[in-house]
């Protein structure tokens, strides 16, 4: 057992007055970006303050009910949505950020994505060879490994069976998990403590290195004077209600913003439109929009058992989508089922015989923006799904239906307006391929978000360089998925952590 942390962790109940701290580096946000930066900088001997607006959650604080869990762990109660194309999207508010309530999927960005980033965004040091050492370091620390077979469960194995029958490549998902028992509770917090979320791993490691971890503090602005950043300032906020109380200021030689790609641009905009000579702060917002489908099997699937998203197929990445298995609190899954009254109850009763699989799409043509609201730090998100990207989602839906029937499903519930609510054969499912879809015909969810402070080799076209340093200010850095120049086509957490790992090393060298 390692030595216990010696750093300073503060929670809401401990704040009694306004306060000021002096450190080398203030890191804003304790999710996969910020926690990695904090740990690596403390390892390099820097004095670090890690600031997080949310509280730390213990297993006793986990809420098993889906909606109540989201209301406690997600910003805007989990009911955030984009304007333009209306699409729900989420951002966690907790120590450890999204890693507390995601399904721990870890993928390296594919070669063709990194090649595209380097070519299109004038990057010289973001190749596979450049990033692999950082992926490796993070992967080793978190124990990233393929999902073990004994906790896959029928829901995942049926997906494999369907893909195998059609000749589509698929594999157990690599995850930051040690000792998974297949509870399927990733989205409400892992009660088995198997998921190696950042609050259990990098944050304690940062504390062990002597970092100050301040929770329930909302950074409202970056303090800049004379062309340099001097620190950050904000308010202590109560958990869940967000009610502000004491003021604080953290003076720092450098600031790293890792508040997430929907919050970092808001902080910059609220700080006098800082580092925006390029005009790119808050622009280029991209998502991996997702669609899901339920398939019903004759035999019981017991879908509640098994790794939450234990299997995936990257077979269609170049076509623009990735396929995954899925489980979530039953109530959250049930809200996607069509109908009402008797028919709805009948479909809900099918869930024990059902598997739910989803697709996430690379929608590089669908662009939006993040703007600060007049009051508060919740972002105003506008985004529109491009018609060509809609075609990718339609193809993904058709492919999911193919896999379901190849796996032996009796029927599928596609959840698409204007086509039958239940489809009983692959031939019937042709309608998914042949009928032109409108954006409003399908239910999409905004998974992952990127690019709002993108990296670019040309300071006129990007906010940060490829190490995460802002082009306009020497000592302000960004380490969240906002720096991605384009969506990575796969789940972004590992790439975000690898880039953050590199950012920390670059920053440590300069301080």
């Amino acid at each position, binding site marked *: 057992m390692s030595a216990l942390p010696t750093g300073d962790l503060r929670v809401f109940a401990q704040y009694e007055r306004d306060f000021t701290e002096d450190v080398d580096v203030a890191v804003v946000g304790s999710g996969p970006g910020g926690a990695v930066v904090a740990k690596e900088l403390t390892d390099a001997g820097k004095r670090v303050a890690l600031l997080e607006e949310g509280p730390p959650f213990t297993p006793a604080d986990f809420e098993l009910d889906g909606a109540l869990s989201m209301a406690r762990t997600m910003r*805007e109660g989990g*009911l955030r949505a984009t304007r333009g194309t209306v699409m729900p999207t989420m951002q966690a508010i907790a120590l450890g950020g999204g890693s507390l309530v995601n399904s721990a999927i870890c993928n390296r960005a594919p070669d063709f994505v990194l090649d595209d980033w380097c070519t299109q965004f004038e990057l010289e040091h973001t190749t596979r060879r450049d990033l692999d050492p950082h992926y490796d370091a993070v992967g080793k620390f978190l124990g990233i490994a393929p999902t073990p077979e004994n906790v896959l469960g029928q829901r995942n194995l049926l997906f494999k069976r369907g893909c195998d029958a059609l000749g589509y490549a698929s594999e157990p998902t690599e995850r930051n998990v040690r000792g998974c028992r297949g*509870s399927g509770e990733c989205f409400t917090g892992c009660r088995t403590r198997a998921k190696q979320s950042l609050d259990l791993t990098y944050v304690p490691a940062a504390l062990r290195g002597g970092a100050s971890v301040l929770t329930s503090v909302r950074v409202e602005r970056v303090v800049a004077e004379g062309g340099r950043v001097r620190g950050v300032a904000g308010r202590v906020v109560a958990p869940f209600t967000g009610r502000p109380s004491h003021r604080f200021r953290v003076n720092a030689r450098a600031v790293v913003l890792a508040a997430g790609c929907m919050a970092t641009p808001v902080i910059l905009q609220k700080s006098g439109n800082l580092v925006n000579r390029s005009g790119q702060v808050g622009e280029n917002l991209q998502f991996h929009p997702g669609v899901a489908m339920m398939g019903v099997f004759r035999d019981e699937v017991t879908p509640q058992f098994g790794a939450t998203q234990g299997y995936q197929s990257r077979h269609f990445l170049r076509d623009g989508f990735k396929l995954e298995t899925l489980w979530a609190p039953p109530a959250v899954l049930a809200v996607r089922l069509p109908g009402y009254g008797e028919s709805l*109850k009948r479909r809900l*009763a099918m869930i024990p015989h059902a598997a739910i699989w989803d697709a996430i799409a690379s929608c590089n043509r669908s662009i939006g923006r993040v703007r600060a609201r007049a009051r508060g730090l919740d972002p105003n998100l506008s985004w529109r799904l491009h018609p060509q990207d809609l075609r990718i989602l339609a193809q993904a839906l058709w492919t999911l239906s193919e896999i379901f029937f190849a796996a032996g499903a009796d029927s599928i519930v596609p959840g698409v307006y204007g086509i039958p609510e239940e489809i009983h054969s692959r031939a019937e499912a042709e309608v998914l391929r042949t009928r032109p879809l409108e954006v*409003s015909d399908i239910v999409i969810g905004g998974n992952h978000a990127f690019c709002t402070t993108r990296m670019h080799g040309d300071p006129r076209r990007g906010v940060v360089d490829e190490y995460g340093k802002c082009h306009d200010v020497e000592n302000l850095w960004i380490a969240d998925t906002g720096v991605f120049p384009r969506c990575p086509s796969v789940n972004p957490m590992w790439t975000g952590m690898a880039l953050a790992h590199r950012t920390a090393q670059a920053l440590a060298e300069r301080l």
Partner: protein
Amino acid sequence: MLGWVLFAIVVGYGVARVAVGHPRPDRRFARLARGEAAFLAAAAEANFPPGGDIMASGFDAGIPAYVDRLLEVLRPRTRLQMRMLFFLVEHATLFFPAPGRGGFRRFSSLRPEQRVAVLEAWERSRFWQRRFVFASLRAILTLGYFAHTPVLRQLGLAPLAIESPVCEADLLYPRIGALPESIPYTRDDLSEPSDGTPLALDGPLDPRYAEGAP
């Protein structure tokens, strides 16, 4: 003068149609107004009628109480949006009537078969905005329905009892709202991490979901 009297009558009638005459709920709610509770009870019963493949009805599930609890934990802006949704569906039938006699009434004052017809019209509307409103309402009702533990137990989907190992982080973080002094663990309490043994599906349920749980 007569014009003012007529105007006052019309306004009074309008206010009465919108705000007066809801039945008194059988319990007090922290957030829900009487009219909202009546609407939610009516919508829950139409969405989850008695009988069928799952025994519990929307009424049995106590959905208004669940929504009241949900409203309690939401931030004011989100809470307002949700309440506006309830108001919209409850009163839309004053302008776009339900089929049959007496269709120009609030949703909660319609007959059961009229409520079902209204829901059907919202769900099948060619205007996506109407479908979106319906889907949002149904989502809230469904969340409440599944929070009723007998529903999850009948489907075999109730969470199992899991004993969380005590790890390093448990020595660092108090429960939300508490002081670090309240952390009940010391180094001696640290336990072995999970060994990856799959959960037994016939194991005991989490106490919050077990038969007889409050």
